[in-house]
């Protein structure tokens, strides 16, 4: 049951925080907390890929932007001219068109946000499958560069296309009526309800991820993380598993993009920016990579602080410093914590002269290589020679 703790906590907070914050006269925090929840959802998608499959994606913001832009574009389409046509009638019969009067009193007929949302997520899934299939064959630096390149392409396309608003982006995105009487929109009256919606969506994402990690696919993922060849040899279809997680991560980002765009009523090319992708990576790294709860907390906290403007003009620098610091602290956040605990416990004091795990690690290799390590090195050398000849 331990794995459901993050989802249950978020679900509980979704309903408990609004009255609490209102009582504390801090209801305005709910706006940033709503936005943070959507960014957290995108970060969790990346956590599955980076933490569990050990693959990097430096273009996560690209999928967020695909979702947001596609939904904004489609839900703003004006279909009045084609009202009588067959497809329009069919959509209308399914309840997938929204009509009414805009603020200037003109009647409009547009695809409903439900339609645009589904289309946008499907688009992101399609693009991620299309990009992921060739790109996930790459490893390490190549994968990082290829996904970074993908993110930059999305930003350039979005910025350069006049139909998508160019540098200004798309605004006046209609509210998303999720249920009768429940709209995703940025108005003050809808603040508490929107907070609850966003945290419930986040809880649903957490639940999905918790189940994934505990399932057969989750074990395959961890096997993949520990060694791709070994996982392959054990019968894991590594290419398929990687692609599945990549697509899942993209879908998380796209859902987050759609909902945040309807919440804000606008989206700009900044959402597709390289720095945004770096943020998602930084958040997963701070969270401890393969750590859902850690990623959740890091995402909510860092995004909230950033959106409140706590970091001021150092906003981006903070995320860069986080990346370096987390990497410097150690191979993983958990190891750093255990080292800290060892250093702080009184029992460790007499043995302080003994080498710390950090400096001890290389020494056995240098002094007396363990048979396992020696065999590993020999195997790698053999593999390299084989590759070179």
């Amino acid at each position, binding site marked *: 049951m331990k794995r459901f703790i993050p989802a249950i906590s978020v679900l509980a907070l979704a309903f408990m925080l609004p009255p609490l914050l209102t009582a504390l006269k801090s209801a305005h925090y709910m706006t940033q907390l709503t936005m943070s929840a959507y960014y957290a959802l995108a970060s969790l998608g990346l956590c599955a890929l980076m933490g569990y499959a050990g693959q*990097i994606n430096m273009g996560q913001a690209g999928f967020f932007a695909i979702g947001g832009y596609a939904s904004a574009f489609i839900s703003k389409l004006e279909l009045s001219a084609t009202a009588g046509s067959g497809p329009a009638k069919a959509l209308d019969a399914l309840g997938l068109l929204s009509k009414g009067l805009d603020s200037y009193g003109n009647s409009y007929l547009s695809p409903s946000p439900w339609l645009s949302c589904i289309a946008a997520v499907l688009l992101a899934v399609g693009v991620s499958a299309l990009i992921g299939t*060739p*790109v996930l064959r790459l490893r390490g630096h190549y994968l990082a*560069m290829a996904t970074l390149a993908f993110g930059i392409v999305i930003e350039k396309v979005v910025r350069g296309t006049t139909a998508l608003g160019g540098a200004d982006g798309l605004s006046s995105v209609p509210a998303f009526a999720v249920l009768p009487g429940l709209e995703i929109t940025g108005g003050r009256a809808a603040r508490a309800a929107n907070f609850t919606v966003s945290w419930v969506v986040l809880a649903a994402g957490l639940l999905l991820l918790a189940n994934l990690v505990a399932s057969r696919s989750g074990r395959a993922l961890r096997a993949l993380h520990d060694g791709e060849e070994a996982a392959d040899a054990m019968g894991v279809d590594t290419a398929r598993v990687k692609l599945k997680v990549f697509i899942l991560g993209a879908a998380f980002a796209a859902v987050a993009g759609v909902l945040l765009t309807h919440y804000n009523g606008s989206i700009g090319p900044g959402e597709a920016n390289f720095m945004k992708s770096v943020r998602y990576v930084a958040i997963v790294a701070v969270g401890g990579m393969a750590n859902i709860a850690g990623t959740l907390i890091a995402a909510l906290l860092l995004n909230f602080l950033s959106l409140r403007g706590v970091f001021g003009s150092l906003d981006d620098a903070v995320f860069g*410093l986080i*990346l370096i610091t987390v990497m410097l602290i150690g191979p993983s956040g958990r190891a750093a914590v255990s080292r800290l605990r060892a250093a702080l416990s009184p029992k460790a004091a007499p043995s302080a002269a003994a080498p710390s795990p950090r400096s001890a690690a290389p020494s056995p290799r240098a002094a007396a290589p363990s048979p396992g390590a020696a065999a590993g090195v020999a195997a790698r050398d053999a593999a390299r020679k084989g590759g*070179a000849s």
Partner: protein
Amino acid sequence: MDASLFIQYFISGLTYGSIYAAVAIGFNIIYNATGIINFAQGEFAMLGGMIASVLAPSMPLVLAIAIAVMATAAVGVAVERLVLRRIARFGVLKMIIATVGLSIVLREAALLLWGESVRTVPFFTGNEVSSVTMLGAHFSPQVFWIVLSIGLVTAGLTLFFKLTMTGKAMRACSANREGASLCGISPGAMVAVAFGMSAAIGALGGCVVAPLTQTHYALGSSLAIKGFTVAAFGGLGNSLAAVAAGMLLGMLESFSIVVVPEAYKDVVTIAVLLAVLVAKPTGLFGSRAAGALKAY
């Protein structure tokens, strides 16, 4: 397209190709020494141009550029000593994340120090209006300086790796790290030299093109991606091929304006990168055997 327009595009391709080649050579030197790709490579070119532009008004241009190159080299060595050396054991993913972090810190530091205005370095000869006319095309004499610099850097590097003891030691380290250290070469020192050289070359490239292309604190990431495209295009680790690939990409980019709208110019570059990575990760001139030698 008439001859003069053709030459105009050609010269523009040459200019941008040179800076891409400079960044790609930087990637290659570090890759050969350590097997890693330094995502902060573009920031070295940015730093070079920025420092030179700040110093140029108060001293002779040559001195300003020399200081800019040396200061950036120092930054390169510091980055390796203070950060990357401590992470190297923990694998590629951490290394990528750390160098991305470094690139952002360098970029934000530049923003804090020098603001977000677009800066420029004085022209080496003449000024912004002086031009050379060739077959009806007009271009700045700075183009000669750019081509000369990149030629000198390439020739100098080739001689350095062939003739000097340090160059040979660096190649030995890249071929076999353990073997080299058994011969009394310090791989750590060679890695530091590699970072210094790589940063210096990037900075020089940044200074030389700055009069024409201007410089800006956020220039690094797009230079890094194009430099990497060029390095991968030529085959990682091969600096001569990087120059050829740089020119090829510069031309492709400048001639792409004929068919593709200007706003999508970078998309062309990146499409090339994705195609090269997927179809032939060892690059156009790289052999599969050379690629397999590297850990990553």
